[in-house]
């Protein structure tokens, strides 16, 4: 059973490299598991969880190419409105986006945008862009994925965005930053986008993007409380939008998640609630539970809700919109992305329609 020196050297090489690779994989996996997206860094996938077009809302979308070279994206509007039967439509409208270096694309969702090739402004050719307008009644989300010139996903990490919800008549505006996931160099360029997680049959390279958060924290004014400045006759309501990160844009199958709420008032008393989300939902907190979120039940003006996706569910993207009313009429609002828990990143898959 003796080994030659060459064999022994070979075995040493194998063992040492195995150790190095194992440590490398473990540290890489820890990095992936801990990563969970951000609103402040340019990314490869952008989630705009709430986009609305109706009599009292329109939405302005801004997407900026943060890089010094031209970039492309495939974007999908997800219609979360309900059918007459009460089921989510979960229908999609998709389009391509081209951005020159450092360019911001801005459009009003109800109007869309059409920039034809060959248009010239100040001797500079306008980029080609065609964003379809959406009709009144749309309520849902926008998801944009960075792709190469041929339409295949890449980890370019060049996009950052904001959305502004506006009341066309009374001037009320609420703005939030898009939630972005950065891509890794493990991206295989196919239409199955692997967010977080480990190697699976659908994700042979493991995570291609950061994972979505499974746990968020929302600090809010208790439902129905008076605005602290306006006092009697005023009220504050918070509308929460939940968008599951896993999306099947190929077959338009709705993703379902259970969302649990642990609500703490200023004296640390705890109340809880839960709701099921299919495809997309935006709802006043009071409609999720009239016990856990109301000023009357919480007993304090402010509260803190820990929002957790079900243990077996994927991650979610959230936006909270706080609406201040006078005499029952909405007068002003502000929107934020809640705080996320960096220790809870989930595994999800987004499937894009094929490139044709």
């Amino acid at each position: 059973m003796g080994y030659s020196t060459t064999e022994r050297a070979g075995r040493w090489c194998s063992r040492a490299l195995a150790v190095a690779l194992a440590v490398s994989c473990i540290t890489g996996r820890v990095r992936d598991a801990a990563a969970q997206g951000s609103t402040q860094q340019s990314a490869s996938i952008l989630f705009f969880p709430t986009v609305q077009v109706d009599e009292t809302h329109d939405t302005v979308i801004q997407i900026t190419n943060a890089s010094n070279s031209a970039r492309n994206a495939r974007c999908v509007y997800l219609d979360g409105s309900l059918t007459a039967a009460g089921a989510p439509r979960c229908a999609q409208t998709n389009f391509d986006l081209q951005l020159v270096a450092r360019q911001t694309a801005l459009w009003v969702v109800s109007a869309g945008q059409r920039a034809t090739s060959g248009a010239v402004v100040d001797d500079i050719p306008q980029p080609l862009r065609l964003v379809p307008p959406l009709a009144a009644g749309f309520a849902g989300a926008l998801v944009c994925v960075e792709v190469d010139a041929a339409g295949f996903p890449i980890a370019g990490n060049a996009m950052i965005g904001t959305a502004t919800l506006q009341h066309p008549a009374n001037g009320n505006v609420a703005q939030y930053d898009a939630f972005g996931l950065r891509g890794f160099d493990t991206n295989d360029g196919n239409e199955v986008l692997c967010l977080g997680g480990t190697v699976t049959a659908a994700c042979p390279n493991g995570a291609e993007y950061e994972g979505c958060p499974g746990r968020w924290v929302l600090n809010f004014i208790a439902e129905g409380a008076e605005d602290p400045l306006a006092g009697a006759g005023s009220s504050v309501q918070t509308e929460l939008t939940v968008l599951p990160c896993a999306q099947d844009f190929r077959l338009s199958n709705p993703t379902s998640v259970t969302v649990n709420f642990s609500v703490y008032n200023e004296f640390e008393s705890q109340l809880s609630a839960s709701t099921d989300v299919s495809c997309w939902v935006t709802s006043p907190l009071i409609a999720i539970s009239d016990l856990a979120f109301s000023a009357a039940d919480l007993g304090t003006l402010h509260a803190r809700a820990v929002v957790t996706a079900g243990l077996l569910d994927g991650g979610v993207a959230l936006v909270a919109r706080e609406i201040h009313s006078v005499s029952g009429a909405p007068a002003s609002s502000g929107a934020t992305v809640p705080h996320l828990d960096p220790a809870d990143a989930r595994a999800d898959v987004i499937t894009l329609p094929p490139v044709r």
Partner: protein
Amino acid sequence: MRGLRVERMARRGVWATVLVVLLAQVIASRVAPAQDVADQAAALVVYPYVVVDGTNGVDTLLQLSNAGEADVGVRCFYENATHYCSNNPATACTDDTTCSPGGVCEAQWTAHEFVIGLMPGQPQAWRASEGKIAVGIPAVDPMVGLLRCTVVDIDTFLPIAANVLEGTALLDEFRPEPSPEFDTARYNALGFRALGPGDGDGALTLGSEYAGCANVVSYAHFTAGVADPVAPQRQVNTRVVVVPCSVDYAAGLPGSVMVHYSVWNEFGQRVGSSRRVTGQDAAGLSDVHATLFSAATLGTLTAKTTVAGIEGGVLVLGIETHAEPDVIGAGSAAFGVEHRGSRATNDLVVLPPNL
């Protein structure tokens, strides 16, 4: 003998390779972005814009929560950068025209400390104009400034590396007459996460003990004064709040940084300008530079601006206002910015001795 030497050399070479791989992993994890964040709990939080004007129905609602599972103390510092008239030091002003003839509207800077305790999971909230006297939070009015809070040990009041503070702010404006007018904007406080156990002293080093300030921050915005694309009767204007990352509360000195602005229009053409910021700068784009940010100069509806501090890092918050000229009532919204790169040098927040 030669075979053994080959084996030894092979072992050394491979282990050297292993060390290089592991070292690279460690370095990669160290240089991973560790900058201030607006969407995670942190050990030091900064509310870049706190404004109170009681006579005009302007207030800021501040909320601070403990996301941890232990009682913590919090040392907070209001930095009041309200401007006052040189010929009437009791009169707050926004520009020279709001002072009596001959007066100049001058920036002031004062810092006021308060300390509170937070139980596990507890949210604490207060109106800046009223404070919360029962728990030791003072009232401030008038105020244009900011608030910084750092987590400390509940018993010793020395800084601890606990990433448990979540902050949010609501800029609230209400005028009851002639008809009720509301304008609100909400933002998350910017947080610096502790990166290690820290040394517990009063000098908080951003970039080593805590996450650092970004090397460059950037934001997309409407060019100054353009028509709102949804409601063209309104103009869109953007106010940019810039705060130096460093401050010395022990010596009573505000941070002071030369700030460079680079503005790109939609065709990638760039113009730039510089401006010194001491304590805080909360200015409309047209006040930062009279012509640089205008649609007439840039030729496009939107632009992208990057902001970089020269001698130190800066924090930036944007506030976009949609309003009809000469009509009371506006819609405002606060927005965050993109953070890029790490600074080569650290910033420092120096706390006064713990009394």
